[in-house]
């Protein structure tokens, strides 16, 4: 037996019982409501995040999923120290984020798809010079890093053009360069591919995977594009109405949330829905094309029966898209 001690990996991000409540104005519509609100302002407390606990190990690439308003961005703001938690504790890279010590700030970055840190009217290189000075990166080293990251991001002359003249995709890549120049070890990415076209999304995605591999960086990524999550994140956190609902592998989530697989059939002649009742649930019928949902454990048996019983021209089996699964679950309130 091997009694050699196994290396213990310390979590680089640790949240314990994290909660955040906000006070928001409670105003009724109409003139009467406006006047009442002016004279007697009422507020109510909203719990944006409730009792969220998880930890992330160095080098992990974790997806953070949830509908709009689920509490993803609020959690990211607490992890970066931008806002103070109402309850619970959070530790990132061995520091308490809300103290905003230089040692902590030098190790993290937050990229928000809709926000920018680059100076709008100047070329990105001007903002990069500022960042290099702020983070104390020597000029020669900062030039080397800019070249390296620009190559990974496929950026060239764009760095010399005013930011306002860049396309959304070019701007996002320049933002990423600015956010990563100090080579942070923990990346918090909030919708970094939002609004980008499919090609630009793919380039940003491959850059993030490359950065994670090359520098061993830890990444927590929120995205509405499931392609980002499936391509990058072996592990996902699922948050709903401020509570952490799931923490584990993406595969397991898919199996747990989608006990059925989708079978697409192309038939020689159209048939009515009643003809498929004994095989599984009919999702859709469009002429000769049929989509069925069949429980995983009965898949082999039912596919065999379909091929034997019906005049099938083509048949394919796939998992339903994960956004459909999660969307359906949120919609049905199945997470409660």
């Amino acid at each position, binding site marked *: 037996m091997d009694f050699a001690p196994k290396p213990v990996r310390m979590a680089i991000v640790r949240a314990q019982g994290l909660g955040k409540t906000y006070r928001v104005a409670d105003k009724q519509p109409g003139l009467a409501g406006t006047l009442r609100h002016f004279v007697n302002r009422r507020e109510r407390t909203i719990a944006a995040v409730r009792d969220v606990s998880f930890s992330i190990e160095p080098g992990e690439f974790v997806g953070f999923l949830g509908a709009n308003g689920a509490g993803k961005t609020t959690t990211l703001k607490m992890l*970066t120290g931008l806002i103070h938690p109402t309850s619970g504790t959070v530790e990132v890279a061995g520091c308490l984020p809300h103290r905003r010590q230089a040692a902590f700030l030098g190790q993290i970055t937050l990229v928000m798809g809709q926000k920018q*840190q680059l100076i709008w009217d100047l070329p990105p290189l001007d903002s990069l010079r500022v960042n290099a*000075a702020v983070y104390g990166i020597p000029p020669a080293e900062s030039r080397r890093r800019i070249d390296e990251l620009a190559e990974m991001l496929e950026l060239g002359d764009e760095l010399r053009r005013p930011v306002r003249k860049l396309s959304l995709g070019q701007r996002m890549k320049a933002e990423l360069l600015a956010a990563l120049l100090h080579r942070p070890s923990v990346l918090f990415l909030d919708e970094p591919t939002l609004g980008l076209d499919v090609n630009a999304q793919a380039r940003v995605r491959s850059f993030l995977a490359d950065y994670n591999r090359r520098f061993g960086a830890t990444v927590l990524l929120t995205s509405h594009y499931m392609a980002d999550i499936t391509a990058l994140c072996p592990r996902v956190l699922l948050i709903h109405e401020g509570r952490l609902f799931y923490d584990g592998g993406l595969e397991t989530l898919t199996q747990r949330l989608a006990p059925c697989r989708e079978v697409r059939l192309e038939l020689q002649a159209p048939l009515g829905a009643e003809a498929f009742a004994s095989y599984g649930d009919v999702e859709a019928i469009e002429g000769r094309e049929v989509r069925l949902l069949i429980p995983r454990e009965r898949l082999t048996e039912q596919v065999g029966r379909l091929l034997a019983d019906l005049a099938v021209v083509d048949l394919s089996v796939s998992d339903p898209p994960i956004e459909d699964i999660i969307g359906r679950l949120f919609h049905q309130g199945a997470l409660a």
Partner: protein
Amino acid sequence: MRRPLAQRLAHARRIAAVLLSSQYAYMLEYRAEIVLWALSGVLPFIMLGLWSAVDAGGGLGMSSLQLARYFLAAFVVRQFTIVWVMYTFEEDNLSGRLSPYLLQPLPLVWRYVAAHLSEQATRLPFVVMLVGLFFLLYPAAFWWPSFSSLLLTVLATLSAFALRFLMQFTLTMVCFWSEKASALERLLYLPYLYLSGLVAPLALYPEAVRNVAFWTPFPYMIDVPARILAGEPVPIGPSFAAMAAWAALLLPINLLLWRRGLRHYSAMGA
């Protein structure tokens, strides 16, 4: 472990240089706007016209030449003490631009200080041109201040700018609690306008008003540096001491509000 002082100073120098140069480049993108701002600061010239008309009988206690020099000096001082940090901070806060800056290891205030200093550098040529034009139209008012009064003027103007910036930046902290904190600055503009010496030299005010005014920070923001530049008698020591006292009062309040404000910050718009 803290780095040696020399390294920290070199780091600070580098940050100052790149912040100032990038902000200057940014301001130059808006040079037309800055010309308009400089032109919009001609209130002292308007006041000069008004007071000269009032003083037609010579009963004000200041000659027309003294008045002209005072208002020209007030114009110059005003150009280098204009502060707008509250408006920018409020906009940055509401739009979410504040968040990325807060996540960098550089106190936010230095970005705004650099922006103000760069804007002053951009104004400089236009101010020189307007001063030249003034002397062209009113050659009798020309004077050349001594080196020592010029040095004192620069010091007093820098101190006035620092005091005005500190005062407005302290008020700016209200932005952490209110989305329309700039209304406070608009309210404060009235006493600033009347007690700073922008509309009239404080020497022309009734003694009681003047005595009260000098217990506020406002006269040190325009009147004192302008009178030094115009060659009028000024109690130098007490004036600088008063500015230092106001700064010493405001700085801890500012730091306290900053810390409290950060606790309250909700990272709006992000």
